[in-house]
């Protein structure tokens, strides 16, 4: 097989520019990457640099650095997103500006770094890596382009150190949310994670839950699947159990000002999960008396959803039914740049949406949630 790549990316970006929507948008799921393995070292104490060289990282789950690549596309990313100066997709600010931010008129871009040090068994190393990633986000991205805002990544399995990291960053305008992943050692509603919610609520920061993670559990409740296709749909199942746990453990009740953002796992399943939760809660309420209201009420009040990968049913009425249940004020547009299942802003929302709802979908909801004027 002879695969050739075009040498110049000029035509690709001019194409993107032509397709671009001119309306200002927010992109609530952008993945910045490190250009090299050691790019974080300047933000890590010598002690941890040495530790990494000598011991590496031990995660709860194998293949911490990402499953065998390529996955669907090289680095699970768009083939046209390699920066001209080299390095993996998503590792160059100037190329991200040229390919994503400028042509799409992105007014707010929320960074969600993956492989950030979460899910590492050595909690001190995990905390150090997360803190380094946060410094790196400021240095390499948010201080250089005011449109970009970071997500505070935290050593999620150690609630106390995670809360300390959030408190340290609270009030720093470089960050607009706290980032967790959906696959953890335990379901996200459990007590060990509560200090995170408490600190986030105090800081007035939403908590994003992005698909993926390194908790060590299989992605499906019935075990490890054979195919990547199954993994892709497994993310929504995984988010469903995370959300059920948050509702039933009483996290929403205990932290009524907490805002959660479900990132990159779809939203079409939200109504049916909520209906099912309400149904069993009515019958089994006495088991969880701390859940004072039907779970669906907490979900509709305290949960937001990013759009990518945008739900794409055959009949657009089906899509509108789901969104009407969730609320047009709850969706946050996202591209997932530079990943391969990227959603093109001008192509995801079917016709037939009112101007107000379009504006909310593409920009307004995000600005409001993340407090951007």
């Amino acid at each position: 097989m002879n695969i050739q790549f075009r040498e110049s990316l000029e035509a690709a970006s001019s194409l993107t520019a032509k397709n671009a929507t001119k309306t200002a948008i927010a992109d609530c799921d952008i993945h910045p990457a490190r250009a090299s393995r050691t790019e974080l070292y300047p933000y890590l104490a010598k002690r941890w640099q040495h530790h990494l060289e000598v011991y590496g990282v031990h995660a709860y789950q194998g293949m911490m650095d990402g499953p065998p690549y390529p996955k669907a596309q090289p680095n699970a990313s768009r083939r046209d997103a390699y920066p001209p100066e080299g390095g993996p997709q998503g590792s160059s600010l100037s190329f991200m500006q040229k390919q994503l931010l400028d042509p799409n008129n992105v007014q707010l871009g929320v960074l969600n770094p993956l492989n950030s040090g979460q899910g590492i068994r050595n909690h001190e190393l995990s905390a150090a890596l997360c803190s380094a990633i946060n410094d790196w986000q400021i240095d390499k991205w948010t201080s250089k382009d005011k449109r970009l805002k970071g997500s505070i990544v935290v050593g999620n399995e150690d609630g106390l150190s995670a809360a300390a990291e959030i408190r340290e960053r609270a009030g720093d305008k470089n960050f607009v949310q706290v980032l967790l992943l959906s696959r953890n050692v335990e379901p996200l509603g459990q007590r060990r994670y509560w200090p995170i919610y408490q600190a986030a609520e105090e800081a007035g920061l939403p908590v994003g839950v992005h698909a993926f993670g390194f908790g060590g559990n299989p992605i499906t409740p019935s075990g490890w699947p054979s195919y990547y296709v199954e993994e892709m749909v497994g993310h929504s199942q995984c988010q469903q159990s995370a959300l059920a746990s948050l509702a039933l453990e009483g996290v929403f009740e205990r932290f009524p000002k907490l805002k959660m953002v479900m990132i990159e796992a779809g939203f079409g399943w939200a109504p049916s999960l909520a209906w099912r939760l309400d149904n069993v809660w009515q019958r089994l309420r006495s088991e969880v008396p701390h859940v004072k209201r039907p779970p669906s009420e907490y979900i509709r009040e305290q949960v937001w959803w990013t759009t990518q990968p945008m739900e794409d049913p055959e009949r657009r009425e089906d899509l509108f039914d789901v969104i009407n249940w969730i609320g047009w004020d709850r969706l946050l547009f996202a591209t997932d740049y530079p990943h391969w299942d990227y959603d093109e802003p001008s192509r995801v929302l079917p016709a037939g949406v009112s101007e107000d709802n379009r504006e909310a979908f593409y920009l307004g909801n995000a600005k409001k949630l993340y407090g951007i004027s």
Partner: protein
Amino acid sequence: MARHVIAPVDELPPGTRKFLEIDGRPIAVFNIKGEYFGLMNRCPHQGAALCEGPLIGLAQSSDPGEIEYTKLGEIIRCPWHGWEFDIRTGQSYCDPRRFRVKAYPAHVEPGTSVVKGPYVAETVTVKVESDYVVVEL
């Protein structure tokens, strides 16, 4: 229909492709085993530069466990969402919507049947004239 000379034949050996812009339209021309094909370099799905994807074959299966891989180097896979298009016809393969709505007739089909998708990439005419590859547009 205007004819555009785009390359001497030996500049486009089998297995290679050339990208160009004709009248502001992005085009890619492929040499597949000595035959030339042209495609609009824009994916009909969400608009990616389609022809930057890899050339692959067509995987088909008559039964789980039976895999046939044909048309080697004749299928282009979109660099974004991976939709597959036949270089010769521009036809896309495997749209899940079709799976959902299609009524399968109750008889045994040969293992080569693959569901065609609704999207068709725009093809352009390419030929060789006195050792130059020419695109008609």
